[in-house]
């Protein structure tokens, strides 16, 4: 069991500040996901942790020990790479065995070790193959087996599912937590896929432009994103956004959408008389009849099924586009004119200028 402490890491490539004062800590046995769009600095941070890239300032502690002078091969980590990085001139067996080779295990121990992890990952039948002869899925599993075989206390997984097809990615997403739980290792997992992040992470660290912008559980980040950008990165279809401004009447705080008043909780009072952005996730909108209280009239343009959901693209009376998602098994609304009702509890409000979420804790 291993803890990781990253403190004030910065890294610059020429004029490019790829990491800017990033600090975070990972608890023993935890799976932390580093999430962000490409260029956010996730991979560089992972490489700083592994010792493959030198940081300009700050420090990395593994189990409380400063890693400053510890070479990559002595940090006791297992790592899987986005492009698999298999050794092309060695068989799958030799690839997987390389960490055991390095610590000079006996040939019998190496054989047992490799076969155990290979059967766990269902690649024991292709161990004699060269990487070239493996399918993409098998390559990916071989790379994973190589990272796991030495039972390293710290696993760094750099977007390992990026280069496999959708079906395999889905299977591995369900399989990985089991594998990782059996290992008992502390895991740092890099991805740009929000579903992977939510599915695999105990906590998610969201990076943007080299900075840590939010660190929290998947629920924290999905339900209480720190800012509009994070809200837009999580969720498919993407969250609907509307420019609104907060108002107050005798009944409390409200905003207006297509001349329908949406009552907000008093905790969002900070939005009053301010330019705001309303964010509503497509699944927080329901179709309803015209007589429902708070019904907003819409004009349906088109429906596109998305996995087990159906996404409706519609126009509000102000000609603003809105995406509505519903389970595919529920009944479809009539085409053309329809009505929707918005679940105000799930509405998110952001400051239009800073993009920060407006919530109770921001109130004066």
């Amino acid at each position, binding site marked *: 069991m291993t803890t990781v402490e990253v403190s004030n890491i910065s890294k610059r490539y020429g004029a490019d500040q790829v990491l800017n004062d990033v600090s975070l800590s990972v608890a023993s046995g935890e799976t932390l996901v580093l999430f962000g769009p490409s260029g956010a600095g996730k991979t560089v941070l992972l490489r700083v942790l592994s010792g493959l890239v030198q940081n300009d300032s700050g420090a990395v502690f593994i189990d409380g020990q400063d890693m400053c002078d510890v070479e990559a091969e002595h940090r006791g980590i297992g790592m899987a790479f986005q492009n698999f990085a298999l*050794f092309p001139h060695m068989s799958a067996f030799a690839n997987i065995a390389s960490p055991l080779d390095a610590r000079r295990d006996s040939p019998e121990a190496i054989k047992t070790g490799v076969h155990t992890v290979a059967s766990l990952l269902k690649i024991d039948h292709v161990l004699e193959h060269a990487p070239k002869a493996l399918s993409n899925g098998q390559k990916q599993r071989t790379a994973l087996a190589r990272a796991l075989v*030495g039972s390293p206390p710290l696993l760094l997984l750099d977007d390992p599912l990026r280069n496999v097809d959708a079906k395999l990615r889905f299977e591995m997403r369900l399989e990985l937590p089991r594998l990782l739980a059996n290992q008992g290792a502390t895991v740092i997992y890099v991805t740009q896929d929000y579903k992977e992040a939510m599915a695999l992470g105990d906590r998610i660290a969201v990076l943007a432009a080299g900075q840590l912008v939010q660190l929290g559980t998947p629920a924290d980040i999905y339900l209480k994103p720190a800012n509009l950008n994070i809200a837009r990165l999580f969720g498919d279809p993407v969250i609907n956004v509307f420019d609104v401004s907060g108002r107050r009447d005798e009944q409390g705080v409200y905003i207006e959408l297509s001349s329908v008043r949406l009552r907000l909780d008093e905790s969002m009072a900070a939005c009053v008389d301010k330019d705001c952005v309303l964010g509503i996730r497509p699944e927080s909108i329901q179709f309803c009849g015209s007589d429902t209280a708070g019904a907003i009239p819409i004009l349906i343009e088109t429906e596109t099924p998305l996995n087990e959901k159906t996404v409706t693209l519609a126009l509000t009376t102000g000609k603003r586009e809105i995406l509505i998602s519903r389970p595919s098994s529920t009944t479809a609304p009539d085409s053309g004119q329809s009505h929707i009702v918005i679940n105000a509890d799930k509405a998110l409000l952001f400051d239009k200028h800073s993009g920060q979420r407006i919530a109770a804790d921001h109130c004066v």
Partner: protein
Amino acid sequence: MEHTGTLERILRAVALTLVVVFFMFPILWIFLMSFQTNETILRVPPSMVFEPTLANYKALITGKLETNAASIEINFLRNLWNSVFLSVTSVSLALLLGVPAAYAFARHKFKGSEDIAFTLLSFKFAPPLLVLLPLSLYFQKMGLADTYIGLIWVYQLICLPLILWIVRGYFEDISPDIEYAYRIAGHSWFATFRKIALPLAGPGIAAAGLLAFIFAWNNFIFALVLASADKQPVTVGALAFVTASGIQYGQIAAAVVMSITPTLALALYAQRYLVEGLSLGAVKG
């Protein structure tokens, strides 16, 4: 569709044959010449029909060149041995120095690394005559003139830039992640260089070594100026056949055949490495 296919195949075969004839004819002609006497070579019109003779090869091997005027001593086998020795040693030394340097240039971008690499390459651009005069003066002062060490040193001007630049490209083509993965698995950087970088760049190193060998073998001017008869390679040694009593075409042809045979054999043997080297892109998949 099938018709165009057939026509295409015929045209392609014809084109290929023309190319082969164009490139192979001189070699074939030299080969035929080496079995003829000067008289049959020089007759007009030339003819493919002649009585083959081994006299030319005999002259080369025994070291006695019989011309119509006199019998001259030549030491062609000595020249051949010099060529082999100089080329092999130069290329070995260049590989020993050049491959680690190429790795450093490929993997560690430091300030001025590009400039240094380019400076090394620029040695190849400079006309040899430019450096020869000062060099021969230096060599005489340092006692390096007419020594194997001196020649091998000068041959580095030919071999080192070639190896450095070709091998560097091959190292750069290896995804750094593959080396990182080996490091992370617990191996030192030197083990990574030996077990990952070297084998993966192997075809490239072989190709570069082969090219360097051919360039070294074919070198003429350095050896002409800096070495005396007993250290000269075949390229210079062949001058001996231009005698006062005429040019000994037959012997020249035999000498050429004997001197191109090693490089030709090497090239044919190493062909598959060259091809393998070019398909290195598979590493990335």
